[in-house]
């Protein structure tokens, strides 16, 4: 500590330890916030279209397009360590071969607390397509609205907001327009 350089060196080494401790303490506070978000999802329309496969001219594959009325209040999820919240609507179904599938149909990134009240018609951004190429033998799917909290420091936490109470059935396939 006799010269400027020695003082700078010694105190920055303690500074890095202090900063690490501070960040660790902040990341631990994530576990203190256990507020639940509330919401509701109501299916508005489910369509199955016979869509063309890319690069395969004469084969088609069924694709499911859904619309949901999504209402959710995510404000309780915003605390000091929340950078953004990722909300997504997930379909869960067993296909005709008995394989359990989970497909994300719609998602949104909420960056600010002022945008945290969601009231929207969630049109499916990503269609559901199955390896068996058909939804005829599949009775239907359950849909769940889920979230991931992305923190500034620490671990990613996740949870469920809402789930459809009844199975959402898939109707017969329509010929795709175009």
């Amino acid at each position, binding site marked *: 500590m*006799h010269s400027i350089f020695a003082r700078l060196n010694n105190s920055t080494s303690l500074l890095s330890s202090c900063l690490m401790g501070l960040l660790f303490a902040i990341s631990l506070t994530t576990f203190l916030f256990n507020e639940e978000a509330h919401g509701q999802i109501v299916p508005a329309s489910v369509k199955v279209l016979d869509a063309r496969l890319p690069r395969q001219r004469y084969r088609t594959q069924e694709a499911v397009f859904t619309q949901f009325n999504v209402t959710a209040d995510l404000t309780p999820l915003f605390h*000091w360590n929340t950078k953004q919240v990722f909300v997504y609507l997930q379909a869960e179904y067993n296909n005709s071969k008995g394989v359990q599938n989970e497909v994300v149909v719609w998602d949104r990134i909420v960056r600010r607390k002022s945008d945290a009240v969601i009231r929207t018609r969630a049109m499916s951004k990503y269609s559901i397509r199955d390896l068996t190429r058909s939804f005829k033998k599949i009775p239907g799917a359950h849909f769940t609205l889920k979230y991931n909290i992305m923190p500034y420091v620490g671990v990613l936490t996740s949870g469920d907001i809402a789930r459809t109470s009844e199975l959402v059935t898939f109707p017969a396939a329509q010929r795709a327009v175009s």
Partner: protein
Amino acid sequence: MSNVINELLEGKIDFEGQRLVETLVSWVMIIAAVISFIAGFALQSLQVTFGLFAASIVALAFVIIPPWPMFNANPVKWLPAHTEAQDTKAKAS
């Protein structure tokens, strides 16, 4: 001229000053971290936490880095220098 610049850059302080700097740094830094954590948690803002912490670190650096006179208040007292006459007397006896 270069001698003066070198001394300014080196910024030497005495032993008591070094002890003072050591205790100052460790106490102020740890207390600043604790206070900024509590303040940020109370106001639910990471900006407050890191703003407060950064401000206290800058203030601390301003206090400890330049060789202020208070760190040179107890200079080391050397024994008086030997003169040639004393040396010859010591050899003779």
